[in-house]
């Protein structure tokens, strides 16, 4: 187990180094100067130069790369060009929305997908199964921003149960904050839950036809006992992979939903930062997201080993 974890950690570090280089290079290639953007079309050239110096943009690329990576290693993500506040402060503000939203959506996804997927697999070919397959097909096909807009029209404009969007902040209390995240979480969870239900179902069906299931039944276990004790655990690997991917996606990929509900999340921050050429924010946030994705993958790898003892030995 230890060598397995060490190996995974090694590849995690390598991925991070490569990612930092790629991110920096990509952002350097993007045309557009942050100082000119901020000062607009009436600015005098000497003013733009003064701002470039103030922002440290007059340094060489190598200097800026090393400065950035050095800062990251010591936990300093730099200072935003546009907002002029530490990037770490901005990011932690945004994470207070994005992280709970992603977890909320993931929780809804799992809570819906597990029972639905298991039920459909256990009653393969039944009306329940066909309904589930049809509904999940629809859930994958419906664009979630459209579904979100429908929910806003119904629950915010017509029924007035919810605000049309916005986030009151956690200091407004747990309930108002969770309420503000409910519609976005549902919108995010709909396609994810549909995907996960289908994965759960097919993965369970695969394991149900394995030889060891027949053995388990031959030992005298009921269908249900065999399913819960043997099939489910073996069906978890693809499901965990999908959950890992979904979490990373929900953390950064909620941008459209964040726009529909005007939530101050990470996705919107990156989007704004790109248009404003707040390069340091883009670099640091993308790096953070890469780190999150790599970390989640690492944890999923560890979880594989936990559910499948063979992986520990094999490595």
């Amino acid at each position, binding site marked *: 187990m230890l060598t397995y974890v060490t190996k995974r950690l090694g590849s995690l570090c390598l991925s991070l180094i490569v990612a930092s280089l790629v991110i920096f290079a990509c952002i350097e290639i993007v*045309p557009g100067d942050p100082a000119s953007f901020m000062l607009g*079309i009436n600015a005098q050239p*000497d003013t733009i130069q003064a701002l470039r110096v103030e922002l440290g943009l007059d340094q060489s690329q190598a200097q800026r790369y090393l400065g950035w990576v050095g800062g990251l290693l010591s936990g300093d993500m730099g200072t935003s060009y546009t*907002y002029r506040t530490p990037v770490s402060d901005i990011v932690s503000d945004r994470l207070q929305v994005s992280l709970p939203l992603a977890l909320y959506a993931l929780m809804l996804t799992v809570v819906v997908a597990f029972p639905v997927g298991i039920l459909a697999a256990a009653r393969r070919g039944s009306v329940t199964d066909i309904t589930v397959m049809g509904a999940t097909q629809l859930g994958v096909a419906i664009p979630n921003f459209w579904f979100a807009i429908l929910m806003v029209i119904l629950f915010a404009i017509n029924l007035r149960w919810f605000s049309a969007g*916005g986030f009151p902040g956690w200091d407004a209390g747990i309930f108002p904050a969770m309420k503000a995240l409910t519609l976005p979480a549902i919108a995010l969870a709909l396609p994810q839950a549909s995907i996960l239900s289908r994965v759960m179902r097919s993965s369970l069906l695969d394991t149900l036809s394995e030889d060891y299931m027949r053995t388990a039944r031959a030992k005298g276990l009921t269908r249900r006992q065999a399913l819960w004790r043997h099939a489910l655990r073996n069906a978890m690997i693809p499901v965990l992979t999908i959950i890992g991917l979904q979490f990373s996606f929900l953390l950064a990929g909620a941008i459209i939903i964040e*726009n529909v509900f005007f939530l101050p999340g990470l996705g919107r921050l990156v989007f704004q930062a790109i248009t*404003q050429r707040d390069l340091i924010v883009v670099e640091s946030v993308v790096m953070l997201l890469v780190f999150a994705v790599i970390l989640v993958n690492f944890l999923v790898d560890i979880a594989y080993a936990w559910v499948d003892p063979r992986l520990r030995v094999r490595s």
Partner: protein
Amino acid sequence: MTGNQTMKSILLSSAALLIATSAYAAKTDVTIGLQLEPPHLDPTSAAAGAIDQVVYSNIFEGLTRFGSDGAVLPGLAKSWDISEDGTVYTFKLHSGVTFHDGTSFEASDVVFSLDRARAEDSTNAQKALFNGIESVEAVDPTTVKVTLSAPQGNFLFNMAWGDAVIVAPESIADIKNNPVGTGAFKFSEWRQGDSISLVRNDSYWGTPAALESATFKYISEPTAAFAAVMAEDVDAFYSYPAPENLAQFEADPRFTVLSGNTEGETILAINNKLEPFDDVRVRRAVSMAIDRQAIIDGAMFGYGTPIGTHFAPHNPDYVDLTGNAPFDPEAAKALLAEAGYPDGFTTTLKLPPPSYARRGGEIIAAQLRDIGIQTEISNLEWAQWLEQAFRGYDFGLTIVSHTEPMDIGIYARPEYYFQYDNAEFQDLIEVLGVENDPATRSELLRQAQTIISEDYVNGYLFQLALTSVVNAKLTGIWKDAPTQAIDLTAVSWSE
């Protein structure tokens, strides 16, 4: 229904009514929806209009200020004297004014602010406003003397800009995130990505604001803006982004739609140095190929005023020169043939993100195609546009709204992106710069408008309209935008 029950229900409903009315009467806050969030809150070191929308005259004040009709009014300076030769301005300041942090406002703060704006390392986006200042001195705590190197006709106008507000040395270090001014509202909180809130400054030197607090809420998606207005999450949406919904709001008694003027001359900018646009006949052909009303109707849903030069139609000195380039594709084709392009040519059309450019660009491309000019359209982000078109001169045509007030002077800068180089015009602007007499100034401004219109420097499309959706009971929101400001000092709830 028994008598007792009737009594009960009357009591209950009147109680409910009472609660409703008193809750209504108590409404002293306002939430205003906006599309663009400011990068920070220092109006003196960035071009973003989103900064001025929050802070102008609410938090920060200048020596002079713009009124809702664009007139220059006294601000922190209650009066001024101008020397005979027009080079020395002596401002008399209001006394007893304090900044929001309690420090007092004095002549030394004016010296500090103006010196900071014109310093060598200044990052003021409109540094040109201060170029003519030779020295600023505090005569006594309430008197400031500004000496100019030459007379400047629009000095008081320049001092009314958001970029010229008075800031304090005590609070300058943190101005970007905690702006401290002298205005009727104090900065309260900025929930980045979400909203900015202000509270009333109870020790304000002037007429106190009616509102106790105000929140600017940032909603960038047009669909989300629609939902927020319909659900009444916001009391007003300033510069509402989806004109296609306006008819629906106009029909709804809960809302008023304000349609006013801005300082935004929207132009089809032409690269005057690039062949074939260096030929005035080609530029004239382009101008005559454009059907302005079709663009206003198609891209702006009918909101906007056609213009024939680079000047705001609501300005008293405006001359209607739309007749210089009437929509006439046949004449345009003839002009092209005369210039040696009977079969037209191909050029680039670079479009920045706003909808006036993206939607308008498609229509203009079709209109130009009719006279034989093919355009290669590319959609650019602002940062790309600044680099390629604005600084790199790498464009044939582009569409931009010039939102700075009274900016006809840009035509006197040959290096400015459309590269118009006319010595006669440059001389005229120079004369205008030092002219103080209002009648002569008006005459010079009319001449300036005419010169650029007759030179067909750019295709003049329309004056950008400002359309806002406002709760029908909210009064005092500026209809026009003489500068990019949302002045809340006179906003209140009626009834």
